[in-house]
């Protein structure tokens, strides 16, 4: 590895006498090696999974746009990258190549893939776990380390149980990353979020099939820009300390706490997936430590970025989260701006999801309170994207106080867009 990741820590390291919770925002930025230094194409593999269930026929534009989007994504795949396209129904089968392996991208294979995609016919049901299992075995047929999939569906996972889907997701975790897209409004946000979260990808709604091609091409561009695979956030904590949580907070909120793997006597690893050049993400780490005396200093966490190499784990960068006990209240009561900001952004995502769930259950009082709080948080933090999405679901009476009324008629697509994009955060102004 030529250049290091930078790791910046934003925190108030001063704790009051007896204080035990240490909060920090960790900003990780990968080296900006520029477009001149892409990884060797041979190290990347891409699979596009398109829903070919019967419902993709209605309206007819859905399968047509899905084919066009897949073709657009195939065009973005760089020469030398191993790739495939899978048709998903109540089972899964390759569209291209047909030998259950991966093809190496060049003009010829890209052309053949697009030709095969154009002939893909929608028929059958939906068993997304099967799709993931096929992608898994096809990825493992090739030695590439940067493995990424795009999964498109228009419906619910009707032809297998949630447990079957769960098992398939577990199988794929750590093997490839997966960006999920739902087209139309007949799919389940929770289902796709479950996949994209576990497989370190994004999830979004594409309400109108005509938007698919641009979205697919953009996702593939991002995937082609990835340079370092399998990066983990390693957190060392002192003895007798507990890591309360580790959350990615930008660009989207993703709680990683449950994704912990022990990597040393006092260290645990959290997966972050692959990184592109000059990519920047923020993490919120909260550690509970045993208080020390006034004037004493403790290292509350050592946060490093680690990638696996053939010769063992390599540390790409690290930052220190410190704790200093003071009896000066002016110091210990100061709240770090970044910590406050992202605490608010995480709450914003949570109250939106809770508010929408309450609305679905017919609990209008809770829905109004939660979505009102969301409006206030979005307003305070300058999260305009989320504020706009909220305004399609509630009538805002006063944004600052969070006074809202639920809209009587809400477009399904607007509600699903708010749900899928609720985790998107804005960064603090530097």
């Amino acid at each position: 590895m030529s250049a290091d990741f930078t790791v910046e820590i934003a925190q108030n390291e001063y704790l009051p006498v007896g204080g035990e919770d240490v909060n920090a925002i960790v900003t990780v930025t990968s080296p900006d090696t520029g477009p001149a230094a892409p990884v060797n194409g041979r190290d990347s593999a891409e699979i596009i999974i398109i829903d070919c269930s019967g419902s993709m026929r209605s309206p007819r534009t859905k399968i047509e746009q899905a084919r066009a989007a897949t073709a657009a994504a195939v065009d973005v795949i760089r020469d030398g990258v191993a790739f495939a396209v899978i048709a998903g129904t109540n089972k899964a089968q390759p569209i291209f190549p047909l030998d259950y392996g991966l093809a190496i991208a060049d003009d010829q294979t890209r052309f053949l893939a697009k030709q095969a995609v154009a002939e893909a016919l929608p028929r059958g049901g939906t068993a997304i776990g099967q799709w993931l299992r096929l992608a898994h075995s096809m990825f493992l047929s090739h030695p590439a380390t940067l493995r990424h999939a795009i999964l498109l569906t228009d419906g619910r996972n009707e032809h297998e149980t949630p447990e079957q889907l769960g098992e398939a997701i577990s199988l794929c975790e750590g093997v490839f990353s997966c960006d999920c897209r739902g087209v139309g409004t007949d799919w389940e946000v929770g289902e796709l979020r479950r996949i994209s979260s576990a497989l370190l990808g994004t999830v979004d709604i594409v309400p109108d099939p005509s938007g698919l091609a641009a979205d697919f091409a953009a996702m593939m561009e991002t995937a082609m820009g990835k340079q370092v695979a399998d990066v983990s956030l390693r957190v060392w904590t002192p003895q007798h300390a507990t890591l309360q949580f580790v959350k990615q907070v930008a660009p989207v909120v993703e709680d990683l706490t449950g994704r912990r793997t022990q990597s040393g006597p006092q260290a645990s690893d959290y997966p972050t997936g692959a990184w592109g050049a000059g990519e920047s993400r923020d993490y919120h780490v909260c550690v509970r430590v045993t208080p020390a005396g006034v004037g004493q200093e403790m290292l509350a966490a050592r946060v490093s970025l680690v990638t696996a190499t053939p010769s063992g784990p390599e540390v790409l960068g690290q930052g220190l989260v410190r704790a200093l006990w003071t009896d000066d209240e002016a110091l210990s009561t100061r709240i770090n701006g970044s910590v406050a900001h992202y605490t608010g952004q995480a709450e914003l995502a949570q109250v939106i999801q809770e508010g929408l769930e309450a609305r679905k259950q017919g609990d209008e009082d809770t829905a109004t309170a939660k979505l009102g709080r969301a409006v206030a948080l979005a307003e305070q933090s300058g999260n305009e994207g989320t504020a706009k999405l909220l305004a399609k679901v509630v009538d805002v009476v006063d944004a600052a106080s969070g006074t809202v009324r639920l809209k009587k008629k809400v477009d399904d697509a607007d509600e699903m867009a708010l749900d899928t994009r609720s985790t998107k955060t804005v960064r603090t102004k530097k």
Partner: protein
Amino acid sequence: MTAEPEPAAPAVCPNCGRAVSATDNFCEACRTELAPAVVSGDAPVTATECPFCHAEQITADGYCESCGRRVPSGRDHLELDLGPLAGVTDKGLRHARNEDAMALATAESATGPAVLAVVCDGVSSSRRPDEASLAAVQAAVRVLLAGVRADEDLAETSRAAVAAAQQALAGLDEPGLGDPPSATFVSAVMTTEAVTLCWLGDSRAYWLGSGTGSDAKQLTRDDSVAGELVAAGLVSEADAMDLPGAHVVTGWVGADSPGAPPHVATFTPPGPGVLLLCSDGLWNYQPDAAGLAGLALPGALGDPLGTAAVLVKFALEAGGADNITVVLAPFPPRALEPEEKPPNER
């Protein structure tokens, strides 16, 4: 100034016993340095066991690998006493480590006893500022000491000392990582006739006269945003310190130094008094020369070590927001008393 010239260095080499000249840097026979300079923190106490949990793994950045507690560094608080001059350095209350360093030495020059001192303050925004300040004082004091002993021109020697510090820091640089190690610099060579000062950055020298009247003044002018605004007559000194970015230094030693030559000045003390060298950890709380004289006199005339400790305590009690280093040397410099042991560090 008619004191009997007494040799500052022992007449025989303490290592091999061979007769040596007072102006020798090293014993001709065994190469032992005869009156070495003392440097704060060049022999850091390398703890091998955590004093809190007794684990035996201390990380390179000074934390216990088990309980996470910061293991006190040998540089947190140091007092150097050479007799004719003394210095105290302290990490202060807010910083995690002491990035200041000082080096002190005594010598016998052509005009009689001389004392010399270097104070450097590692630039916090650079990489490894603590190593930078230490490397700078070590390199500079060696050149100063050799120059004084050899009766070189002191202004030239001072410039050569800065060049040596500059070279030492360039050697610490890891190109490509950015923010190369850097430090401010102030040195003084005080003979029985004059004080030769040399500086880059905002570490300062003051003259604190003990005569009647307000005989106290700042001898250096800061290379800082505030210092430049004051020098240009744009703002008053009191107002300048409140400006945002006032403390940003505009001169330093280090691989990315702006390259301006160091300032050199010669000051002829009008009478008895004390020379003070300090980092901004002290003068932030009392920039005024008369105010500093009020704190340091008359104690510093007879007890430079005790008084340096008093000044450090003053800065700690005022807030201790930065590392603090104070060096005091009474004028005229006196020779080492025969019973004064070779330089020690405690």
